[in-house]
């Protein structure tokens, strides 16, 4: 057993415990500053982690430290740091227990870190539960707001249902094959390719993962939960939880059952296409910005599934690349929403009116984020979509369905232009007169967060070489 492999996870959990304990000794008015301390601690862990990347397995192969694991761990820590900054700005909307809020974010992060390394169905289930259970609490943290509680309950019920499906599926897989470890399963999966019970088990596991990434037809929860949850929670849900779902999906499909998933091109193509169209079409009439981003996140799950459906290394690399651009884009957008709308009852788009006069930096960030989500050069989203499309078209020779999928994605992109531009129009050229033109005060750390998000969007969009090489290197250890 190699404990040093999980030192990062141990430190993160220790940080969560320290945050909870610090609550006892910190005076109430200083507690919000704990968020900065937590972010700083995570930044130190990130820097230390950048140096060494020992690879290997631990706990009898349950836990694996390889290319994708290292890539996603850094991804999750960056996301958590930005979310913690956002949470500090949001702290005055949380009536009590702000340090618990911080520590729950850190615990959710630890779940994501374990998910990145999961190489065993038991590990997969435990890490998903660690993420999901903390998110039940994080979603309903604004106890005074009915929508927040409603969102929490919805997420709890649907999340519990999907966990039940998943654990049932795991039981069926274990019952038929006797394996829980992904590498061991890969050796025997080919023999069970015709076994209906095994296949049912795998499908149920994928249902659970589909719920995490909000893919059709398991996307119903996303808009309501996105709308009701406190903004930092929504942001972490949109980035961290979705990415955790994708790393597990990649591992299950390409490490555990590559010989079976090779035949699943058509179902994946169909799910990806419907998810793209559903997300984009439903986003069209939305007036609530968080709900709009909820639907947009469904559409983006569909785009990311393009790379999964391609069943190729370049598709997987495209997924990783797209997620890293998506991280900065979505966190930038949610930081702006958090800063502009934290005191409003509903996050209607009309509240953005006059934002370019109230705070040019916020207006710029949100505009760039929308441009990047829409996939327009020179932002990160363009090159990401380019890579995903390229990965799909590469496979076009083997299955004409991929061409249909590429055209579906294209239709989705065109539809999405309408609502993303609607947001930009609301910022600069709103029809209704802005209700409030008072300047928005930005704290130093908030400015830093926004600057990081803008820099990230431009860096990944304009200089894709480094990130693409990282992603290509990372997916080499997924067996495909």
């Amino acid at each position, binding site marked *: 057993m190699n404990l040093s492999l999980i030192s990062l996870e141990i430190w993160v959990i220790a940080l969560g415990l320290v945050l909870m304990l610090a609550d006892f000794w910190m005076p109430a008015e200083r507690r919000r500053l704990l968020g900065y301390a937590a972010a700083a601690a995570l930044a130190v862990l990130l820097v230390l982690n950048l140096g060494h990347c020992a690879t290997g397995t631990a706990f009898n192969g349950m836990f694996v430290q390889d290319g994708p694991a290292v890539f996603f761990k850094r991804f999750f820590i960056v996301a958590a740091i930005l979310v913690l900054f956002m949470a500090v700005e949001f702290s005055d909307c949380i009536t009590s227990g702000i340090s618990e809020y911080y520590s729950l974010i850190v615990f959710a992060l630890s779940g994501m870190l374990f998910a990145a390394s999961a190489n065993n169905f038991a590990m997969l289930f435990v890490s998903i539960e660690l993420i999901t259970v903390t998110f039940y609490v994080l979603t309903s943290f604004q106890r005074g707001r009915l929508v927040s509680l409603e969102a929490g309950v919805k997420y709890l019920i649907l999340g519990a249902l999907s966990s039940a499906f998943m654990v049932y599926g795991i039981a069926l897989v274990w019952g038929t094959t006797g394996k829980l470890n992904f590498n061991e399963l890969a050796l025997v999966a080919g023999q069970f390719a015709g076994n209906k019970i095994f296949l049912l088990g795998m499908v149920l596991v994928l249902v659970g993962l589909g719920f995490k990434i909000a893919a059709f037809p398991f996307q119903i929860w996303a808009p309501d939960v996105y709308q009701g949850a406190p903004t930092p929670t929504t942001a972490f849900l949109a980035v961290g939880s979705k990415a955790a779902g994708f790393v597990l999906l990649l591992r299950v499909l390409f490490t555990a059952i590559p010989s079976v998933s090779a035949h699943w091109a058509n179902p994946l193509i169909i799910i990806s296409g419907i998810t793209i169209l559903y997300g984009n079409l439903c986003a069209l009439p939305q007036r609530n910005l968080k709900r709009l981003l909820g639907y947009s996140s469904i559409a983006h799950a569909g785009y990311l599934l393009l790379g999964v459906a391609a069943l190729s290394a370049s598709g997987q690399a495209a997924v990783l690349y797209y997620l890293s651009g998506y991280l900065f884009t979505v966190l930038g957008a949610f930081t702006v929403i958090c800063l502009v709308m934290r005191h409003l009852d509903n996050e209607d788009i009309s509240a953005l009116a006059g934002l370019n006069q109230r705070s040019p930096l916020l207006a710029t960030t949100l505009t760039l984020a929308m441009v990047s989500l829409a996939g*327009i050069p020179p932002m990160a989203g363009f090159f990401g979509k*380019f890579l995903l499309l390229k990965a799909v078209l590469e496979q*076009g020779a083997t299955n004409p369905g991929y061409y249909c999928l590429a055209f579906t994605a294209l239709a989705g*992109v*065109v539809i999405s*232009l*309408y609502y993303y531009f609607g947001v930009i129009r609301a910022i600069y050229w709103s029809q209704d007169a802005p209700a409030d033109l008072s300047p928005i005060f930005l704290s130093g750390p908030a400015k830093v967060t926004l600057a990081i998000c803008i820099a990230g969007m431009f860096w990944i969009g304009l200089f894709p070489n480094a990130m693409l090489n990282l992603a290509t290197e990372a997916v080499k250890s997924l067996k495909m």
Partner: protein
Amino acid sequence: MSPLTYILGWPLIAAIGLVFVPRNYRVIIRAVAVLATFISMLLAVKMFCQFVTGQAGYQFEQQIPWVQSLGISYHVGVDGLNVGLILMGAIVAFAAACCSFEIQSREKEFYILLLVMTGGILGAFASLDLFFFYFLHELALVPTFIMIGVWGRGERKNYATFQITLYLSVGALIALIGLIALYLQSGANTFDIPKLTEYVQAHPLAAPAQNFIFPLLLFGFGILVSLWPFHTWAPLGYGSAPSPTAMLHAGVLKKFGLYGLIRIALPLMPQAAQHWMQILAWLCLGNILYVGWVAMRQRNLNLLIGNSSVAHMGFIFLGIASLNLIGVTGAVIIMIAHGFLAALTFGLSGYIYRQTGTLEMDELGGLARKLPFIGAALLMAALAGCGLPGFANFVGEVTVFFGAWKVFPLVTGLALWGALMIGALYMLRAMRNVLHGPVPEKWAGISDASNVWRKLPYALLLASLLVFGCFPRLLTEKITPDAGKIVEMATENAGGLVAGDASSRERESAPSKQSDGQRRLTSAATEPK
């Protein structure tokens, strides 16, 4: 550093610089925009003069690797095909920046978008890398939508924005799929156009791949160029756009699709090109005759100009479809001439709109008396649009007809009729309504372009039309060697595929008739003098 990098870089740098200028410094914002486009224009003129005619390969090249694993690099360079287009783009961009005094609200955002658009267009034409070719075009395209949506005019502004965004995004994305498929199918693992061309010459694409990719590029680019029947976005879009945007889009950005067809689709997929050009020849009649007919019915000057601009695209498509040296050379000349012409007409109609507040031809009349300079310029533009000798359009159109006659006599005959009759009819009728007759009393207060600054953009565009109209050799001697290469690649291996087809035999012999064509070209060009 290549001068091309500066030509496309100055507007982009100025755009970034403008972000940091406070919005109430209007004079500075305007001066920065005009200056940046002016420098670009000067550099483009200098490059055009320094261009060594007939030298093999690309000139003023620069290459910086961008994503090695995919073979993407920033690679710019010019040959005879795009050197004139870049010059035209830079001149039109400067004229558009000068004409932007009509924008009175949110100037800062407008000039930033205008500069981004300028840099994007010039970059797209200069780019020798498929990825950047598309990337920079997209960078220029998106500001168009925003500019029409925000600074547009007319009651149907929102509808027009919506329509143009949908149409052009669909067109651009179809072309993107085509370009990615081309990259993947070629197997060259590079986006570099010269390398790709070389590779494909040695390893031609399989026929099914060509037949699949070529229509994607043809219709993707076709939508961007308003190929009939995908043209409906253009008249309304231009009618609703602020005039600098219409100038840049109709004049320059629209030529991107045509340039893409000539530079990429024809040489890389010769067999499919052979097949599709027959169809394209008939589609272009839709542009020339049908859209010309629609233009005759217009009551609004801007819609008329928009429709006539769509009709002119038909001649360019006809030139490309002829797939011989004379036709393709003519197509490139019309691309350049039409760029100046479209910019000129949209600029002038924008001036009239700002003075009168309307472009309904029933309400206008007698403006030549009140606006002598603008009126005269508009009349000259209309005559250039009808193909009057002396203007660059004549040279291009006559060259295209000579080229196309050998391949599609029937289509050419009909197109000639469209060019001479329909074009002249609607243009001259519109000029009579707008410029002549009694002056309605309500226009007593309008004033002509008063000072040099106001006259400069129109005078510059008119001068360009006349210079290239009277000295077409400036363009033809640069274009023909490289157009010849494209035609050679596009017609080789054709015999085996469509043997027995009289028109293809005709085309094969086209390169050998080069000297003959050259002679005719020169005689056509000297005719106006």
